[in-house]
């Protein structure tokens, strides 16, 4: 009388863990997106149809740098899924350098060029909070990339098993998606104050 029970995948199998890890990462990304969404709403609530007076050229350059970094991050993931270790290492390294370049552009250049500080009214609060929180995520992304680069150099990833690379890539692209909305909100929409 024993009924046929469909075979379940063992909980410790790589395939099972990969599926659950993917769901976990997307839930984390969703929760982080709500935080950035809150900052975006705050920007329009406090500044309305005005925006901080920022250097348009610097804004376009840092945006381009982040966009190019996403391209190389995608290449890194495709390379490791092909088993191309050298391509993966090179693309990850370029992505890291571009991420550091983005940080230098925002914190080292834009923050220094801005003629207002974090405490100078709503525009200071909005600008430094949005760019600061985003830059913090870029920094953690760079650290994440440094970890997969180190592990990649040790040969820990293969075409069949590279969850950490997939996770780092998704996180990096998410940080890019956030900037896709922050860039027009800070640099392009409204009249400069």
């Amino acid at each position, binding site marked *: 009388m024993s009924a046929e029970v469909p075979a379940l995948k063992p909980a410790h*199998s*790589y395939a*099972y863990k*990969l599926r659950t890890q993917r769901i976990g990462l997307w839930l984390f990304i969703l929760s982080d997106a709500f935080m950035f969404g809150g900052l975006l709403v705050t920007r329009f609530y406090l500044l309305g149809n005005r925006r901080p007076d920022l250097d348009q050229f610097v804004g376009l350059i840092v945006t381009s740098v982040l966009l190019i970094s*996403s391209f190389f*991050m995608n*290449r890194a993931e*495709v390379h490791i899924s092909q088993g191309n270790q050298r391509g993966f290492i090179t693309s990850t390294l370029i992505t890291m350098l571009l991420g550091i370049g983005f940080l230098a552009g925002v914190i080292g250049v834009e923050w220094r060029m801005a003629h207002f500080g974090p405490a100078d009214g709503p525009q200071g609060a909005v600008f430094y909070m949005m760019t600061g929180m985003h830059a913090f995520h870029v920094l953690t992304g760079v650290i994440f990339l440094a970890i997969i680069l180190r592990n990649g150099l040790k040969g820990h990833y293969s075409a069949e098993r590279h969850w950490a690379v997939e996770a780092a890539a998704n996180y990096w692209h998410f940080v890019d998606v956030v900037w896709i909305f922050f860039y*027009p909100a800070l640099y*392009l929409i409204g009249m400069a104050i």
Partner: protein
Amino acid sequence: MEPETSPSRPDELRRGVLVFVFLAILTAIEYFIGTHELPVILLWVIALIKAGLVIWYFMHLKRAFREEGEHE
């Protein structure tokens, strides 16, 4: 009906280049709109298209809904 297959590796690299070129063009259009005081709604539409491209092609959203736990 033909079974759905994932693109081969060279196709994936080429697709990455195409998506990047499209994103770069959209960013240039965005900059033009922003600096020429054109309707703001266009900036939101472009931002949504760019985000959609990144989420679908670079973040591979569809992988989260797969039954099989495999890398592509």
